[in-house]
């Protein structure tokens, strides 16, 4: 039976910096503190007084790994503030770029961060250099998968990190169609490797179930990261512009990030791939549905480790969606849509790799940003992460400290948290925890 307090100063194999303090007295867990430790950069304040055209590029710097999510959420918020309707081609190319983001970002999390947990190793650096070893095969699959995501990003938006081509109203430069056939060929070729990853994460038998709700965007016509209405397992339907009316901020005094709860019952909720597959698996690409029936049958799931499997399935969906787009798209020459500057308020709600991302832009009549809010998925998942850890420690104090720390890190890792994102905040009344 473990009796002393447990501290993890720096949780590893995640994006950014976080720590954990567990207080144990008389064989019982008294307190669990999951602490987001990245220093704030106050970008939502620093963006004020800047012209709206510069905001997307600046705010994409909130995060290195999901910069494209912040870029697109900013663009969407500002387009809404300016009442700009983009063309169908712009929507399709953004979808393609977003597929590329999900392929690269999920593969980084699954294969570089989680795969060692699945193999019982410390690091991908410890995977044996043996071609017959499953870990070796999966790791080398991941290089191909990630590289393909990056290469699609480079063709469509100019880069995978801080992409220079997407802008308010469309694209500064249209992609070179002559590069599409090679991408198509690689996408088809990667499917068996992606399916091998899905099987591996399906076979990963770790389990931690929690009675929480799940929230994600839903588009009735297709599995969509960029458009839709927020829904939850318990039947809520929330239009993106009403987001703030349904969630309350909770100050977590020991964390550099706020937490969030439902405003009506103060219940907590989980975002991310698990929420999306739980709520939207019926809308996945038909090829993905056909090839993942066995794996999809376990959803809806309340096991947080199934967030890993859900991400692996989303990679396949994004591969299949990208194939469909590249097979059908004919690029027509068009310029970004421009309208006279006006004062306005715009909301941009999309699904980042880790879950629902909210941006709100307030623009004055000269086109200058006067206020800006961002709510990121890791902040919203923070309370659920802490509750999962409390449950885990309460049920497992008979294990030794090394095992407790290993499992605690793997639970946190399953959420795929991003601390760089989490230290941006919203300006509304706080509930003290």
């Amino acid at each position, binding site marked *: 039976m473990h009796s002393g307090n447990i501290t993890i100063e*720096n949780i*590893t*194999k*995640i*994006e*950014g*910096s976080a720590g954990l303090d567990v207080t144990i007295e008389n064989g019982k867990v008294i307190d669990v503190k999951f602490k987001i430790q*990245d*220093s*704030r*950069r*106050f*970008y939502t*304040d*620093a963006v*004020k007084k800047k012209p709206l055209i510069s905001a997307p590029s*600046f705010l994409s*710097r*909130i*995060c*290195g*790994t999901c*910069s494209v999510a912040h870029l697109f959420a900013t663009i969407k918020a500002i387009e809404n503030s300016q009442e700009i309707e983009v063309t169908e081609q712009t929507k399709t190319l953004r979808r393609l770029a977003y597929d590329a983001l999900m392929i*690269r970002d999920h593969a*980084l999390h699954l294969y*570089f*961060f989680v795969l060692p947990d699945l193999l019982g190793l*410390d*690091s*991908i*650096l410890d995977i044996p*250099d043996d071609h017959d070893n499953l870990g070796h095969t999966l*790791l080398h699959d991941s*290089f*191909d998968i*990630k*590289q393909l995501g*990056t290469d699609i990003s480079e063709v469509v938006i100019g880069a*995978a*990190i*801080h992409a220079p081509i997407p802008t308010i109203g469309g694209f500064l430069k249209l992609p070179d169609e002559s590069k599409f056939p090679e991408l198509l060929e690689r996408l088809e070729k990667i499917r068996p490797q992606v399916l091998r990853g899905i099987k591996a994460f399906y076979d990963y038998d770790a389990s931690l179930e929690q009675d929480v709700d799940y929230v994600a965007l839903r588009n009735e016509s297709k599995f969509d990261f960029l458009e839709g209405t927020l829904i939850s397992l318990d039947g809520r339907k929330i239009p993106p512009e009403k987001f703030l009316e349904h969630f309350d901020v909770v100050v977590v*005094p020991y964390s*550099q990030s706020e937490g969030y709860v439902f405003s009506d019952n103060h219940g907590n909720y989980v975002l991310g791939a698990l929420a999306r597959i739980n709520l939207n698996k019926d809308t996945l690409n038909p090829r993905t549905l056909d090839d993942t029936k066995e794996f999809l049958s376990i959803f809806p799931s309340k096991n947080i480790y199934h967030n890993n499997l859900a991400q692996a399935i989303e990679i396949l969906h994004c591969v299949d969606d990208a194939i469909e787009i590249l097979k059908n798209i004919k690029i027509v020459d068009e310029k970004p849509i421009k309208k006279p500057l006006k004062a306005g308020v715009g909301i941009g709600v999309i699904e980042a790799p880790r879950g629902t991302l909210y941006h709100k832009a307030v623009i004055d009549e000269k086109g200058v940003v006067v206020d800006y809010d961002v709510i990121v998925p890791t902040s919203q998942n923070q309370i659920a992460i802490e509750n999962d850890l409390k449950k885990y420690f309460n049920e497992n104090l008979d294990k030794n400290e090394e095992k407790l720390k*290993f499992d605690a*890190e793997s639970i946190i890792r399953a959420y795929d948290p991003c601390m*760089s994102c989490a230290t941006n*905040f919203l*300006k509304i009344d706080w509930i003290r925890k």
Partner: protein
Amino acid sequence: MNSDQNKKLAIGWFCFTCSEDSTILFTELLNKHFDEWKKLIDFKYIRPLKTKNESEDLDVAFVEGAISSKTQEDEVKKIRDNAKYVVAVGQCACTGMPSASRNAFEEKDIDDRIRWYLEHFDYNKKVQKLEDVVKVDDKIEGCPMNVTKFLSVMDKYLKLFNII
């Protein structure tokens, strides 16, 4: 001089105040360089990739991000003491920006919400670039870092330590 086949370049990779975009880009470079670098480099400290990290006796420390607190200042000084060479990686480490944006805030811009965080957590008055705090031997600018420059710096140290 012939290379030493048994020696590996002992490196550490550290992140401070930034978006970690250069770290992400580094993980992308592993797509093509993993097998080669695994033979040449001992990754002694790299939190995004491993739990069991050691920060002592480093040949080269790559440091991403600006320095925004006393804790970070102390930590980076310790890194400097433990490494023969320190490389500033990315724009925030090299110039402070954009992480140092708050340095330009006027008193009237600092509302109660910002002040609460500045007072309740460890923040220096100003965000600093890396060489404001420790001696820096090489800089790889860019947001994220310039890949060509990074590869040439890596190559330089692999040669300097007689690894290749």
